[in-house]
């Protein structure tokens, strides 16, 4: 792209040698593409790059939010997270464990259910577009709406789900107040809410698989199962990798569902790491340790992502 731009620019130069200013700033000038990028770059630096560095700096200080400055203490805040006598140590690892539990149970579901739906909705099913819309619709809702809906549905005493269960003679389940039900409820709500997004990505991926390959395989006598296993899935690998990575990141960022559905309970068992970071920063005003928690969590997420990419790449070599 840049090289093409340069070539065009030099061509223009040869035709009309009109001075330096036009060469850089003219309508076909060398800087032109960068001007298009500028608005985004400004916001990107202001709201992403700068906060990343500022946040990291804060994590190395004893930051006083009231004074808006802090004393540099090196890795002191990180040490707190590994010091058994510090409260941050207890709460952070507990919250991180909770988040990991959620990642482990939600990611496979969010990918597999999305894949199943995508396969169904790309088969010769009547009313595909209607179902596609229905499954995608919850994605448009905000987390507060989702949480309210599921809180009502899953209410122990007068929720619709328990009402149905009691109709068929099953004792009502304490969906939101005891484990493991609290995790199951949060996972169900999350899958219902976000699976449509992955589904749309996978549908596009499946539609992108060339029809000729399927035809050739049919002639060779491959059945539907074999076609799925040896054609669809391998062709979907890049999309699947993308879906897996974004889903893992999204699951790590779990916040709104437990906050609004269970309040992190029962007894902190669904309190995710993001909520703990938020509490540390904005309820306890300890920006330093909160920053340290954020960066440690980010590091873990990066490790996860790299591991995932490696895993997919390895499969490709086989």
């Amino acid at each position, binding site marked *: 792209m840049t090289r093409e731009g340069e070539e065009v620019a030099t061509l223009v130069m040869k035709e009309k040698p009109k001075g330096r200013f036009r060469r850089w700033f003219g309508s076909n000038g060398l800087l032109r593409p960068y001007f298009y990028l500028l608005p985004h770059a400004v916001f990107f630096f202001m709201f992403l790059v700068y906060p990343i560095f500022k946040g990291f700096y804060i994590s190395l200080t004893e930051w006083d*939010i*009231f004074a*808006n400055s802090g004393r540099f203490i090196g890795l002191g805040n990180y040490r*707190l997270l590994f010091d058994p*006598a*510090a*409260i*941050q140590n*207890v709460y952070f690892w507990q919250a991180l464990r909770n988040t990991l539990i959620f990642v482990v149970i939600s990611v496979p579901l969010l990918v597999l259910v999305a894949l199943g739906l995508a396969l169904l909705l790309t088969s010769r099913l009547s009313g595909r577009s209607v179902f596609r819309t229905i499954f995608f619709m919850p994605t448009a809702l905000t987390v507060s709406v989702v949480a309210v809906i599921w809180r009502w549905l899953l*209410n*122990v*005493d*007068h929720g619709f789900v328990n009402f149905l269960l009691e109709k068929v003679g099953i004792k009502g389940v*304490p969906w*939101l*107040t*005891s484990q493991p039900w609290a995790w199951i409820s949060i996972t169900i709500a999350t899958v219902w809410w976000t699976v449509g997004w992955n589904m749309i990505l996978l549908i596009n991926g499946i539609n992108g698989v060339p029809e000729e390959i399927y035809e050739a395989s049919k002639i060779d006598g491959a059945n539907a199962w074999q076609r799925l296993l040896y054609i669809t899935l391998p062709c979907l690998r890049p999309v699947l990798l993308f879906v897996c990575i974004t889903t893992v990141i999204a699951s790590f960022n779990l916040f709104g569902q437990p906050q609004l559905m269970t*309040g992190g*309970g*029962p*007894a*902190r068992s669904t309190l995710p790491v993001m909520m703990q970071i938020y509490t540390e920063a*904005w*309820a*306890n*005003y300890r920006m330093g340790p909160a920053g340290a928690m954020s960066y440690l969590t980010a590091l873990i997420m990066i490790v996860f992502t790299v591991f995932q990419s490696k895993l997919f790449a390895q499969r490709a070599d086989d």
Partner: protein
Amino acid sequence: MKRFRYVLLGLLLVCCFFSLTLEAAPIKLEYWTIFTGPNGQTMQRLVDRFNQEYKGKIEVQMSVMPAGNFYEKIISAVVSNQAPDFCIMHVDRLAEFTSRGILLPLDEYVEALGLKGSDYAEPLWNGGIWQGKRYAIPLDTHPLVMYWNKKLFREAGLDPEKPPTDAESFIKVCKALTKDKNGDGKIDQWGTMLSVGWPNFQYWYTIFHQNGGTLFNADNSQALFNSKAGVDALQFLVDCIYVHKISPDNVQVDSEHEAFKRGELGITFNGIWMMADYLNQPNLEFGAGPVPQFGSQKAVWGGSHQFVLPKQRRVDRNRINAAIEFIKWFGDHSLDWGFGGQLPAKLSVLNSPEFRQDPYFGRIAEMADYVYFPPFFAKYGEAVGPIWDAVNAALLRKSTPKEALDRAKDLSNKILAGN
């Protein structure tokens, strides 16, 4: 020369005019509150009335913001020198802000303007003091209240005007109210409902202080709540569910509130702020009274809204005095505020016949005398956090009350030891 004289005269007139208007320009005060519900409208009405009465002198401009990030807003406002002239603050958050030097000490102004401790309910007035200095003036208190369904009382053969007053009568009454109405072997009407979550900490807190418990030691370096008083209080709540069987287990937050509104629950405990909701519920015949005395002394959980003045970079005594003038005026006119679901802090209003003879508020007004505020400190909110989890764990029988509170004590001590 003559012309010049006219010009001079003209200038003089203009000056006079401006000085007059300057004299008449009211002091405009910015006032931040967290009253997003119906009590926000009550507050606005009172502010309007004040502005009417003080027309030309003081004009209060109220801004309402959601409680969720109110305190974050105050911080950033003070840091950037945009703080309001005065605002509302919960009594248990005061220490957090005073200890950081964000609030103005009020002693000199309060005395000069004739505000006296003897005019206010004692615990509320004392709640505004931190380390010997006054930082806040109370508006109200909002204690935990016992609500009971009078219709269900009559059906169970109980006197609807005689609610339980101690642990023994409470259990007896609740047992009479707990029944299987349609005969399917499943209890569908409960005596009470103890939720797993809000506001069960308030239940425990009330009984704990009724048992004579103390949360933290004098210098707030050690948690003391796993004492006998604490364990007994928690055991009592657990027994209500599993021994006396007067409450179901696994009660979801707000379920008890909704069941009471539907008229399917005998007794429930919730804040005084729920009164409006219950009063608006058609066909709900209920009573409101003090929380029974489960322990050896009177005490009840309560919050309190207090007026505070954030520090400004430039001290303007006129503005400060004007703000305190409003606070003083508000105290005298807080009857409507009380009926909005609060106990007014000012004794003349709290003990007025209008308030005392109200069938709902009259009975609970006495709680303003013994609502219990512990000595708050900056980390109070964080340090009681583990108790919230302990109460839940015990009510779910994940651990015994003793184990749960021991664990909470360790966590609290870690919080108190950290910086």
